[in-house]
């Protein structure tokens, strides 16, 4: 009898606790920034595409759902001519983000990727590229290293000496 009353009392108390369930989709749950959701391509602080088309994300991808074609502009800056992720195959493992040497490819907190037609899950560059820097605000690969591009000459990257003067006779 006592046990029964104890049970009723417990249930009664639970009526006043905060519910665990969230009223999704009206209410969005908190997701940590490192959540591995929909993949985006970010831009560097100067607003240029971060992706240099190195193919490391595609080779890291265990399901082979990333395909791209690298190209370069007239000043030698490399970028992907096209970039495709097939989200119907993606397993959101985050290896692509880990492999990316320029912080271009990032996984976001967006997980709402349901579609009626699988074809709509094939994202091209225009769907992937965002206008901000994503999780890594300051980084710009070409300032640290890389080739000479428009706006950055030889010797102007971090830790670089001015170009050697080959005609100098000084020791």
């Amino acid at each position, binding site marked *: 009898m006592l046990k029964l009353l104890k049970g009723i009392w417990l249930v009664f108390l639970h009526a006043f606790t905060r519910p665990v369930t969230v009223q999704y989709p009206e209410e969005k749950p908190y997701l940590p920034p490192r959540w591995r959701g929909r993949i985006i391509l970010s831009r560097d602080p100067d607003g240029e595409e971060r992706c*240099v*088309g*190195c*193919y*490391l994300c*595609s*080779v890291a*991808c265990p*399901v*082979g*759902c*990333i*395909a*791209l*074609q*690298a*190209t*370069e502009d007239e000043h030698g800056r*490399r970028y992907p001519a096209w970039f*495709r*992720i*097939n989200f*119907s*195959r993606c397993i959101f493992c985050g290896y692509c983000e880990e492999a990316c*040497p*320029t912080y271009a490819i990032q996984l976001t907190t967006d997980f709402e990727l349901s579609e009626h037609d*699988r*074809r709509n899950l*094939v994202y*091209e560059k225009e769907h992937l590229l965002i206008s901000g820097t994503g999780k890594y605000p300051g980084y710009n*690969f070409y300032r*640290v*290293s*890389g*080739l*000479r591009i428009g706006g950055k000459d*030889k*010797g102007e*990257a971090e*830790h*670089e*000496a*001015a*170009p*050697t003067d*080959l005609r100098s006779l000084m*020791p």
Partner: protein
Amino acid sequence: MAGIIVDDRPYQVDERENLLQACLSLGFNLPYFCWHPALGSVGACRQCAVKQFRNEHDREGHLVMACMTPAADGTRISIEDPEAKTFRASVIEWMMANHPHDCPVCDEGGECHLQDMTVMTGHAYRRYRFTKRTFRNQDLGPFITHEMNRCIQCYRCVRFYRNYAGGRDFDAFGSRNHVYFGRHEDGALENEFSGNLVEVCPTGVFDDKTLMPHYTRKWDLQTAPSVCTHCSLGCNTIAGERYGTLRRILNRYHSEVNGYFLCDRGRFGYDFVNSEARIRRPKFRPNRDSQAITMDKEMLLRELGPLLADKPSRIIGIGSPRASLEANFALRELVGSERFSLGLSARDAGLSSLILDILRRGPAPSASIHDVEQADAVLVLGEDLINQAPRLALAVRQSVCQQPMQIADKLGIPRWHDAAVREAAHARLGPLFIAAPHSNWFTDVATETYHGAPDDLAALGFAVAHELDQASPTPSILNPAIGSLAKRIAAVLRQAKRPIVISGTACKSETVIQSAANVAWALCKTRTTAKLCYCLPESNSLGLAMLGGKSLEDAFSVVKDGEANTILILENDLYRRADPLPVDAFLKTASKVILLDNLEHDTMSKADMVLPAGTFAESDGTLVNNEGRAQRFYQVFPAEGDVQESWRWIRDLAVASGHPRQSNMAAWHKLDDVVAALADAIPTFQRLTEVAPPEKFRMVGQKIPRQTHRFTGRTAIHAPLTMHEPKPVEDADSPLSFSMEGYLGQPPSPLITHYWTPGWNSVQALNKFQNEVGGPLRQEMPGVQLIESSDKRTVMYFTDVPAPFQARDDGWLILPWYQVFGSEELSARASAMAERIPKPVLMLHPDDAARLRVKSGERAEFALGDRLHRLPVKLGAAVPRGTAALTIVPGFTDTALPTWSPIIRAVES
């Protein structure tokens, strides 16, 4: 053999090698940079350090450079010694102090020897906190990129470019950590072998510029073993494809043919495959005045079937020296051997069959490129090697190092000790005699050169042969200068152990070819093992000569006489083979002209029906190179749409026509069926089935994959077209698959699709595919030699000695002046070539130009056939008086050459 002890285990190695070679041959992973199997050791990079011990009691030991230490008997070394390992890691760390962190934007990334070696030594974090040295780059032309920041100063590039390939416009500049490798100023690298820098450079200083517009990492390329189609030498290549376009060509090692190197025509001439001018859909012109309309394959075959079935004897087939043996044979089967034309003028066909005849009936066997490298005396008679067979010119350059090598041998200097051997040899060069109508930079290494008209070159050959063997005929009138030169050449050739005579079709002269045969045969009589090497114009010229058929002129007369009215042309532009007027008449008279080809050209615009044929990258087949070696090339990627192999088109035509004679052709389902039929039909090709493993060949029950095990994007590439991930296309013709699945080990040599072993991602992985570094590949199948030289010692010399060349008052003998970039039909259509193709000129001797009162750069008028041409004049002191040299570049063909024509100074309006 010498017994050496590596890390307390005994091994047997070749005592002529150095320790680095020995260790690599034994399968050890020992890092290195400056050493290259073809270039030898200089000990510049200090990367291959190992610990050497005096004896088994020596615990201390001392560091030595493996590449500079001979593998002497009893040598005791340790690769795993902690001090040696630390030393090697430190060397890498020093190199990385200035190496930029730009691997993501470096074309070498993923196939970089420096990356591999860095991982191998374990260096991971940069401790050096100061600035990195930078350099400005140079524009090195349309083939090669330059990014000097990446340089690790191993000196391989200079050693290849200057010492090995003889280039002069590239060098090392500066001192200490400012050493710079480049040209004295911006400009295209002049040497014809500059493309090898891409593979020779251990990192990304020099990369393939033609790859950049469609850049792909090595792991993403679908690659297949191929054979170069841009000259007759048959160099082995690896061709790579991605997203349906051909992306690049790499060298494929063959110990007897191309070794480690290719020429730039072969490496950068591939882009015609992706050309806008490719024929990709069947085309049909209902009547001659209307525009061509595209059609699908079934409709076209329905249209063509009855046409061919109607009167099969009224079809003639025109073959091609740039199509595979199988395609030519299929055409010959369709039309019958009596109606099969070689697609060559009688003169050109005659030259090829003369060469075939000489190689078959004489005692001198044909020489491979490797034989030429090893020759200790070479006579080049009338062949323009650097322009017609560039890779052979590179081999001839190595032959002049053979005799000075004996000085090093006498001094006890091992042959791999590159710097010391060069020091010992100093400027001495072995004997090389070049007799050719024109000079170029390459003739500078020759002991003596002689420039003359073809008849005079032949006279020289006959005179040399007569000096060697009195039984051979001699010219009745001989210029004393030629006579004494012949004596000197004969004396040298008689002394040589491995003399080689090189000639070819560049002079388009039968007597030059015959005189070269006389020299080699005369040498064979006097007990030396002389070899003979002929260069032919195209990749399958010799194969076509073996197949045999009528000349183009015969085909013209058959149609003119009304005996045939349908022409089936296989991969051939007739306007490159004969004068335009007879070709026009030929194509106009015939009621139906059917063309099978891959690129648009003048003949195509006259054809009634055009069928899209696959290029070398979209088909399998066999080519016979200049020495008679049959080699298989494999399809790189599945052809798009209706494009298919020429032999498949011809089979489909045979089936559509439904004629009983073609019933056996209906049973040709795969390449092996055609090869078997060819081997059955013609005794010469009996051994053709042994050229490469048959289609049924499997390694551990699996096919050999064309794609690497890291191939990416397989679920994304086709996603916009279909979500249902199509099954990979099956390859019915070969043991290779269009997939990443299959056997990952080393297959027999004709099936190696790419060089990769764990830890070795760069082309240097090749070491792991050889039993002995620099030797043959494991399970090497070097192709089948289809020509057996006669073992008869008594020879029938050619006696048709020409009279000396006489300059005429009323005209000049116009000779073809071939160009490495531009003369060959297919490579001239590659986009990167455009910048390197020279402008057409007419080259004259300064005296002749003075006689005509034209100055260099002024234009002169001359006639070819019945057409007048006007070209700027160039002066060349080496041009024989009374002759003129015409550059063979797009717009000019060698069909009418050599020919006599008056030349006048053009009056500019």
